[in-house]
């Protein structure tokens, strides 16, 4: 069955520290891959996406993610977090065929320690 796993429910990092949020997917073939962020009371904002090509993708707000086919992973990273990065982060996949739905992971809540 198709699935997206985010093993960390809640992560706390200090402001200025580096961040890595983990994401693994289970799919028949490599899907399209996404990271979304949700701030309290806000909708889902797309941080970055991977379709093909360079396996290291850059996104907004200084985030990047690396696709590793051998590990079926798409981990999100940021070298130095800011207090405003505190939010819920969702990894998501979308089938490369015509299917329109996005399948989301369960999310990782990021807290920033001053």
């Amino acid at each position, binding site marked *: 069955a198709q699935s997206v796993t985010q093993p960390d429910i809640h992560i706390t990092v200090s402001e200025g520290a580096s961040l890595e949020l983990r994401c693994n997917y289970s799919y028949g073939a490599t899907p*399209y891959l996404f990271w979304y962020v949700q701030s309290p009371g806000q*909708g889902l*904002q797309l941080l970055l996406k991977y379709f093909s090509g360079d396996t290291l993708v850059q996104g907004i707000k200084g985030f990047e993610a690396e696709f590793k086919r051998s590990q079926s992973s798409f981990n999100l990273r940021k070298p130095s977090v800011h207090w405003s990065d505190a939010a819920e982060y*969702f990894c998501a996949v979308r089938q490369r065929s*015509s299917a*329109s*739905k996005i*399948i*989301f*992971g369960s999310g990782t809540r990021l807290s920033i320690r001053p």
Partner: protein
Amino acid sequence: EPEVTQTPSHQVTQMGQEVILRCVPISNHLYFYWYRQILGQKVEFLVSFYNNEISEKSEIFDDQFSVERPDGSNFTLKIRSTKLEDSAMYFCASSERLAGTDEQFFGPGTRLTVL
């Protein structure tokens, strides 16, 4: 910057009542979606809609749910007879095209509370 809007932001209703959640997609978008997120759970796909027809729906989207584009700007989700388990955040999204590479833009959500 164009954005998807949703009203109301919070809806409280009694079990068995009908609710209509409203969305205004981005104006040049042609594909529309509803997702929901039960508190503490993942975001789940409900339905996609194009050219006044449902394109795809999940097993969650049973006969008590319906979608409609009543005019050129609104896209609605109707729940005919609400149940306690319908309490969730409902997100509307829209995209220009159906292609997997096309971004879906999400609204801020409507929190539905069924008492």
